[in-house]
């Protein structure tokens, strides 16, 4: 119950508008788990700079905190750099967590960006009390993150997974990378990047992608026309959208379906981008039943409208487009490196001699898993 009604007026009417934006995406993963520096992702996203407009950029990197790999790494931004807010947050954190270590996230003062917040990171483990002991660590962390994000003004947890981190802000992704010294300080085995093209005002740093909850991160391109439906459905399950972006909804949907309901991405993709009824009609009975039931039960999570999304968590990265492919995606593979991008050129710019490059069918996910070649399955029906 903890979050019911946090920060919400009684009417939908007072909720902010859904953000409207288009973007460039890139993701890369080493399926052997070898960590590599950020220059691939940074160069690739620079290749498709024209897909963003400098109003947002961000990275998610997996495997960056091997020393604290058992701790939840909370990246928190204090928007107006107000110390008193930081005090409130830290009080809340110490009430609920064991904070093993904290520090300001290093930045490059040479890089001048629009209204940068104070950004701090905390490595924590849960300290559950009373009824909370029934909750899993993950549920507990989500609950606390939601609390900070909905109840403490000017503080925003933008990364909360273990051994991974999100770095984002207002600017082109290249500038963000420079600002956070990504090419110098970090190595990871998955890098996802987002270059944002919003239609509204610059806004704030937290509104940039990737969006994340626990170790789930989402970078997304497009606009989801079903936003209201998706959002209101998720609200029933305790997900309150604070950012009013499609990406946030998508992240929650992924969390709800994959983490909480335990559905594999292959099933989730049929929920996000289900086959048309005409196609379902043609299926074998069992498959028809599956697809029909998924639409019947999870229809409110159909993501309607144009999108490409790259979702990552530990050991897995996948990309998917909407079911009528109103937005693009291309995949590439070379040995144990797998790439996902809005444009093939971005991949080629960093990996010219690919083994494969393919564009999957609308709604058909490219699933990149650790120590597997599952990503090649999506070559069915691809071009």
């Amino acid at each position, binding site marked *: *119950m*903890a979050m*019911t009604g946090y920060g919400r007026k009684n009417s939908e009417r007072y909720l902010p508008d859904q953000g409207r934006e288009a973007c460039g995406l890139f993701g890369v993963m080493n399926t052997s788990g070898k960590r590599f520096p950020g220059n691939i992702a940074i160069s690739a996203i620079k290749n498709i700079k024209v897909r963003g407009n400098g109003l947002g950029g961000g990275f998610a990197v997996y495997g960056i905190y091997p020393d604290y790999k058992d701790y939840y790494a909370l990246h928190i931004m204090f928007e107006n750099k107000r110390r008193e807010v930081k005090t409130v947050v830290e009080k809340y954190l110490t009430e609920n967590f064991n904070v093993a270590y904290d520090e300001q996230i290093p930045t490059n003062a040479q890089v001048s960006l629009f209204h940068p917040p104070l950004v701090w990171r905390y490595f924590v483990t849960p300290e559950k009390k009373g009824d909370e002991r029934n909750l899993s660590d993950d*549920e*507990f962390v989500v609950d606390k993150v939601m609390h900070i994000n909905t109840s403490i003004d000017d503080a925003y947890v933008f990364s909360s997974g273990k051994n991974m981190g999100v770095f984002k802000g207002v600017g082109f992704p290249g500038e963000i990378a420079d600002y956070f010294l990504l090419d110098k300080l970090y190595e990871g085995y998955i890098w996802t990047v987002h270059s944002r093209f919003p239609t509204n005002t610059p806004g704030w740093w937290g509104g940039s992608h990737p969006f994340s909850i626990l170790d789930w991160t989402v970078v997304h391109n497009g606009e989801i026309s079903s936003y209201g439906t998706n959002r209101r459905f998720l609200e029933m399950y305790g997900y309150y959208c604070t950012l009013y972006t499609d990406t946030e909804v998508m992240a929650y949907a992924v969390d709800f379906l994959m983490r*909480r309901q335990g559905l594999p991405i292959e099933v989730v993709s049929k929920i996000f981008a289900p086959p048309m009824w005409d196609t379902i009609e043609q299926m074998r009975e069992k498959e028809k039943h599956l697809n029909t039931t998924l639409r019947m039960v999870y229809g409110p999570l159909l993501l309607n409208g144009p999108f490409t999304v790259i979702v990552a968590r530990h050991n897995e990265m996948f990309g998917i487009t909407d079911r009528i492919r109103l937005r693009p995606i291309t995949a590439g593979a070379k040995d144990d490196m797998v790439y996902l991008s809005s444009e093939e050129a971005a991949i080629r710019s960093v990996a010219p001699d690919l083994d494969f490059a393919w564009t999957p069918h609308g709604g058909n996910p490219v699933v990149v898993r650790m120590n597997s070649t599952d990503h090649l399955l999506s070559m069915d029906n691809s071009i």
Partner: protein
Amino acid sequence: MASLTLKSGLRDMFLEGSRHVSELGGYATVSGSQAWVDALNLKHKELNDLLREVASQGARDITVRNVFGQRYIGTRLNTVSGCNVNLSIYGTAGNDLGAFLNGQRLTVYGNTQDGVGNTMNEGEIIVHGKAGDVAAMSMRGGKIFIRNNVGYRTAIHMKEYNDKVPVLVIGGTAQDFFGEYMAGGIVILLGLGLAEGKNHNANYVGTGMHGGVIFVRGNIEKSQLGKDVGIYTTDDRDMEIVRQYSGEFAQRFGLNTEEILQAQFRKILPLSKRPYGSIYAY
């Protein structure tokens, strides 16, 4: 996280925790056309699942013991094709006993609660005890025999059509709004337990009644009747009907028909087939 899974959530008070019929084998014994069911600790759906199952296996005489308020007993036997079952129920049958019944015979050795024979279509219900409120509501066919008293609004909106005429015989007396809205059918109120000189309990008898007939044995004052009905002496044809169904009643409960018939019967009839025909301005 529990708080995220369901908010206030939805609990199904009827079905929650119901076991599948395949897990209920221990509650039933079937031997040829005979079956015995122990209803103790069975939820209503479990019991009805089980009855359906044993009927499907060919049981036609089913004895159910330890009934404590399970609802809708007999209702779902409608969905077993060609099934006509004798059900003997020991205990206190739950609400809506035999609701929508369509041809079974239910005998309750004990009291029943509300809604006995609700919208029943065919079959027979025999209660060796009393019935609660709205017994025989909207009954359309078949017969109900209640040994003792009945509650409020008995036989409300009972109907008939051509030769499909429901019959309700009550051994004792009834409470208020007896025969309300009645549109058809035969109701016989015997008043067997009434003390000498005591009136029947019911007030507002036959309010809105516009069809069917109520035969009353025992005292009932005009002031106890609704404004839409009148009370009349019976004629020979009426008494033929009374004799037949009182006879069936007596036979089921081991009583003497002639003794029952010795007392005076009167009949309550609607004053109009259209009690509300004139309240509108066209």
